[in-house]
């Protein structure tokens, strides 16, 4: 009897001990999480500054964009653009500032001003990507960004005016934009996937280019490249599974009269070529799994004839068409920036008898271009040569 009572007592004591232990553990964990919460709250307040708003909560910041965001007293974001926006020479700074702008526009809608005051140079392609971001902002928010144009560099003001930027900002182009510059930009065009006659936009751009140059260009090759770029966006860039609400692309051109160089740019904000490329070969699947198949290699692979995300044998000729406009000139270059990679084909002709000498180049980056940017750059020698 005594031994039975002893066993019951021991059991009750063990249960009580276990309960106390569990309570202690639970309290310790609660105290830790409370301290962690307090610590995070305090550090967020420290970072947020006087406005009480932490920019890093709204935009993606990295070493290139760290000092480019300010918070106003009315809890709005002011974004500063860097001195040079150029994918060729300053890729990381350019791409990360656009990434910052994209995050701010899509994520919070708290951007009040985009400052161009520091910009001294903007390349044609960077200008198109910037225009696409602001255009998207206008469509989403149905209101214009504020801009302090008084302090802009005159060259930048002229460029942005030519490109149709002032219309995006909802302000008239200044009457006096100074003497004509070496580089002339054409107003950008926006196409929407599924819209009626998208080929007309490509034709319109060609007509504007010829009006600017005063002589005809190799229009069939240009249309071949642009029509395939447009088709690729329609077929691959905005997969239905990703939930894109605006399926658009932007198109523009510029002419540098000093260098005799015509530049045609096409940009979409889709999933990018690396994101939609099928992995056919076993080694590609393995490399992709271990993260050693870079985006530039994926773009290069997509240039192979017959490689298409549709996996249909008749498809996958389109990207090859992009090369033709560059190859048709004495000197031509096709650059494709997509996600975090770049693929470039340079073509040079020494005479009419021999075919062009072609070289290719690839590069991988830290920051994404936010879709796919295609840039054709060709040297135009004279009217006769281009006729």
């Amino acid at each position, binding site marked *: 009897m005594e031994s039975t009572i002893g066993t019951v007592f021991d059991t009750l004591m063990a249960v009580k001990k276990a309960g106390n232990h569990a309570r202690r553990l639970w309290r310790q964990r609660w105290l830790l999480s409370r301290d962690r919460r307090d610590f995070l709250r305090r550090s967020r307040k420290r970072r947020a500054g006087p406005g009480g708003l932490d920019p890093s909560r709204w935009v993606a910041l990295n070493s290139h964009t760290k000092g480019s965001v300010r918070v106003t007293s009315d809890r709005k974001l002011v974004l500063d653009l860097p001195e040079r926006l150029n994918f060729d020479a300053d890729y990381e700074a350019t791409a990360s500032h656009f990434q910052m702008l994209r995050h701010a526009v899509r994520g919070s809608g708290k951007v009040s001003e985009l400052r161009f005051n520091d910009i001294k140079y903007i390349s044609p392609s960077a200008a198109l990507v910037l225009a696409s971001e602001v255009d998207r902002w206008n469509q989403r928010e149905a209101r214009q960004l504020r801009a302090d144009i008084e302090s802009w560099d005159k060259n930048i003001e002229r460029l942005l005016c030519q490109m149709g930027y002032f219309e995006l900002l909802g302000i008239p182009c200044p009457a006096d934009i100074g003497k004509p510059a070496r580089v002339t930009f054409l107003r950008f065009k926006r196409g929407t*996937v*599924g*819209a*009626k*006659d*998208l*080929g*007309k936009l*490509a*034709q319109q751009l*060609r007509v504007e280019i010829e009006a600017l140059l005063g002589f005809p260009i*190799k*229009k*069939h*090759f*240009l*249309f*071949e490249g642009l*029509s*395939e770029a*447009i*088709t690729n966006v*329609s*077929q691959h860039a905005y997969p239905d599974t990703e939930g894109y609400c605006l399926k658009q692309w932007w198109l523009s051109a510029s002419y540098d009269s000093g260098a005799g160089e015509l530049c045609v740019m096409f940009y979409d904000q889709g999933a990018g070529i690396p994101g939609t490329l099928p992995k056919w070969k076993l080694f590609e699947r393995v490399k992709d799994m271990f993260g050693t198949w870079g985006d530039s290699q994926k773009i290069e692979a997509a240039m192979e004839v017959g490689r298409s995300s549709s996996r249909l*044998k*008749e*498809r996958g*000729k*389109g990207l*090859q*068409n992009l090369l033709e406009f560059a190859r048709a000139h004495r000197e031509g270059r096709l650059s494709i920036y997509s996600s975090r990679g770049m693929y470039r084909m340079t073509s040079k002709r020494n005479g009419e008898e021999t075919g062009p000498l072609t070289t290719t180049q690839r590069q991988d980056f830290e920051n994404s271009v936010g879709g796919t940017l295609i840039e054709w750059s060709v040297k135009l020698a004279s009217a006769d040569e281009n006729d």
Partner: protein
Amino acid sequence: MKTIKIATDYSNTPLGRYLEDSEFNGTRFREEFLKPALEKEGEVEVDIDGVEGYGSSFLDEAFGGLVRKGYFKAAELHRKLVIRNADPDLALYRDLIWKYIRQAEARKAP
């Protein structure tokens, strides 16, 4: 012989493969213009002049698609179809059309 002039009868900016790509795509041209004309007429001449240009998606779907869909064999098309161009710059597109027809036939063969 019936003549279809793409630039005036269809569009001078033909673009894309499928209906969703653009209004004047290759599928629509094949189904509404090329196939009915080839079925009804003995011979059809397609005039490819006067356009802005052609992308491979349009040409492959419009012409290669005739074979892929099983409407005609490549040999039949060689008898019935004439591709005409006066603009020498467009000769390469004429060659591409026949190339896509040949490729479609080769892929169909068991």
